[in-house]
């Protein structure tokens, strides 16, 4: 009996002890992993996977997919075009804005192993090819050499029709051991200028691109360029540190005032930073969704002209008279109030100004002030101005309302003009006047006077940004005279005591409803505390509107806005008041 059992046991265990002929054990294939899909032009795409172990047996791989909303399973149409362990979807098989659910199966003689499924939407997996035809030339501007870099978008990407929008980034470094790459975002431009070169040095330049929602391409092939040696001793760029070079540039008549470069989209800005004066070269005006500016040679008020160092570096006394004349010629009813409440305004500006503010500080000697901010393009400077800093500074640039007589509680609610939204959407368009609404004209008129008066003439009124840039201005409330008080949209910076800020993170107005007069009732939930000065309302409800003919506010400060048409947005719809009102007639 025992022996029989033993025999059976032995028989059962025997296969385990008999080695296979080749010495390996077979098993199911390993799970395919790391499924990655990319599309170079938003018209086709490819998926790659990483095979697992083959289990010792020949293993084949198959890719299956399902489109959203459908139960039908398809197999990969093309396993070869994109190489091993890949699947290529051509134009016919690629649908945008539709979710693909993709699974890869490994099969060998023993069975199948499925990968984890992956969901993709082609529109979010775009990784373009690198830009092409990178060209670098050395050019000279009044003896100073600079590099002009230009390139083309990758061939397959359809930027001409607007199907893809690409933004570019380039990087430069000297051909020597310890130098680091210096990156510059060029926005949608296909050209870029690099200044502050070391004479005699050789530079390496590469460029890459990215769609607005997608991945960066690989860096293009490198271009090499050698900067000629400097011969004249006077204007020579010695091979020192870049900031030394920059200070040399600032002293001279750089940036160029002669506009030889009509096609250049380069804007020259000078920003006054305490302790430090830096030259910002605003090369691009782009950020996500922000389109490049349209340089128009015919526009006399292109920002370039105003940025000329001639205008900025103005003598105090000389400018003051000029400003007065300019104002008097303006012809509207601005009058000559500038001298009177000027001190009060200055005082309020001081109250509102923070320490780091780029405000026309009357006490500074020569103010090279640009009281506004542009898109956060990295300026070409050795220690670039942090875009965030400049935003902070400009937000705190506070202009008081001329409507308030001095000494009134105007210091509690001075008008602060939002010169930049917190989403960096601002573009510097050359030929683009601000959308003219009644209200904005009022504001613009005020700010004209304000800046000239407060600056003591340091900044001429033709430098005013409102005439040139897209701004988001948030309305704080109405005062008694149905004038609009504005305040900028701060994000997380401290509030001054003298000014009442209403801190919002969002500047969207939720539509509360429509009343019987077809008036759009807006509502806003205020997140942070605010000081309510309107009729002592204790509730934290708040609305914003641009007033044209609005009734007096009620205690709850629900300000109504007349809607032009019967087009009423859904109750849960969000209205961007800036949009609404700038498009309204």
């Amino acid at each position, binding site marked *: 009996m025992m022996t029989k059992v033993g025999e059976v046991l032995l028989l059962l265990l025997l296969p385990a002890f008999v080695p296979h002929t080749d010495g390996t054990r077979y098993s199911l294939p390993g799970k395919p992993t790391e499924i990655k899909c990319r599309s170079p032009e938003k018209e086709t795409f490819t998926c790659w996977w990483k095979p697992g172990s083959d289990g010792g047996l020949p293993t084949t791989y198959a890719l299956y997919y*399902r489109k*959203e*909303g*459908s*139960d039908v399973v398809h197999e990969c149409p093309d396993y070869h075009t994109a190489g091993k362990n890949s699947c290529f979807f051509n134009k016919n098989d690629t649908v945008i*804005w539709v*979710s693909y*659910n993709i699974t890869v199966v490994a099969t060998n003689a023993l069975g199948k192993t499925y990968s984890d*499924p992956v*969901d993709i*939407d082609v*529109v979010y997996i775009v990784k373009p090819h690198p830009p092409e035809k990178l060209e670098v030339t050395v050019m000279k501007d009044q003896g100073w050499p600079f590099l002009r870099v230009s390139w083309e978008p990758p061939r397959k990407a359809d*930027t*001409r*029709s*607007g*199907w893809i*929008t690409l933004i570019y980034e380039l990087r430069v470094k000297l051909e020597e051991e310890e130098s680091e790459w210096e990156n510059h975002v060029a926005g*949608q431009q296909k050209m870029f200028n690099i200044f502050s070169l070391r004479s005699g040095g050789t530079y390496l330049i590469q460029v890459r691109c990215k769609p*607005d*929602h997608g991945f960066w391409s690989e860096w293009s092939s490198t271009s090499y360029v050698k900067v000629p040696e400097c011969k004249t001793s006077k204007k020579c760029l010695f091979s020192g540190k870049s900031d030394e070079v920059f200070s040399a540039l600032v002293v001279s008549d750089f940036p160029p005032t002669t506009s030889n470069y009509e096609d250049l989209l380069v804007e020259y800005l000078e920003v006054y930073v305490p302790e430090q004066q830096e030259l910002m070269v605003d090369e691009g005006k782009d950020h*996500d*969704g*922000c*389109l*490049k500016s*349209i340089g128009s040679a015919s526009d006399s008020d292109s920002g370039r002209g105003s940025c000329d160092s001639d205008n900025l570096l103005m003598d105090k006394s000389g400018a003051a008279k000029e400003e007065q004349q300019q104002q008097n010629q303006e*012809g*509207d009813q601005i009058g000559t109030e500038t001298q009177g409440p000027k001190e009060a305004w200055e005082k309020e500006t001081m109250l509102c100004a923070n320490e780091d503010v780029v405000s026309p500080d009357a006490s500074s000697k020569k103010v090279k002030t640009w009281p506004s901010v542009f898109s956060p393009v990295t300026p070409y400077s050795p220690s670039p101005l942090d875009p965030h800093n400049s935003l902070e500074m400009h937000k705190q640039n506070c202009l008081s309302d001329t409507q308030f007589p001095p000494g009134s509680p105007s210091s509690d609610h001075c008008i602060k003009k939002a010169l930049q939204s917190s*989403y960096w*959407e601002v*573009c510097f*368009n050359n030929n*683009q*006047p*601000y*959308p*003219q*609404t009644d209200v904005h*004209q009022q504001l*613009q008129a005020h700010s004209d006077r304000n800046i000239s008066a407060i600056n003591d003439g340091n900044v001429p009124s033709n430098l005013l940004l409102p005439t040139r840039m*897209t701004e988001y201005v948030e309305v704080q409330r109405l005062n008694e005279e149905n004038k609009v008080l504005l305040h900028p949209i701060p994000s997380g910076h401290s509030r001054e005591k003298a000014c009442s800020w209403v801190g919002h993170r969002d500047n969207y107005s939720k539509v509360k409803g429509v009343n019987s007069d077809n008036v759009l009732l807006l509502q806003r939930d205020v997140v942070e505390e605010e000081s309510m000065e309107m009729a002592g309302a204790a509730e934290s409800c708040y609305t914003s509107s641009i007033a044209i003919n609005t009734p007096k506010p009620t205690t709850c400060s629900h300000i109504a806005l007349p809607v032009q*048409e019967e*087009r009423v*947005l*859904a109750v*849960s*719809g*969000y*209205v*961007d008041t800036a*949009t*609404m009102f*700038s*498009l309204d*007639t």
Partner: protein
Amino acid sequence: HRRCSCSVALLQTTVLYINPTRLDAAPLCTNAEAGCHVLSLANLFDRVIQHSARMHGISNDLHSEFELYFLPSKNQVGRVSRNCHTNSVSSLMSPEAFLAPGSAEWRLMKDYELLYCFRRDSNKVQNYLKILKCRIVPEDGC
């Protein structure tokens, strides 16, 4: 059942003010007071596209954060049918059918679908506007 009509409303708003047959400037002020500037169509497009980009950025953030914090597992993602505003084809499957209506899960999926659609719709709107602009007012950027 909330529907986010933001992107559609935005598109409606822009379409109402853009008349593609007229290529001249669209005046924004009726009374021709001094200093009343007229915007070009290209300019108008630029602004609208900026807004749509902003809209999409926000919707993208919303969607990512929702996925990150509120979705315990991604199992249902693939099976969700997208009844997005900009979809022309109505889908057959709906995850809500498998969940008890009114339950927390059901609400979660509804919210997720809303954000998913908002993101997709705003992306479509943005893309559409860019193409429209290049077709109507071609310029260097196109």
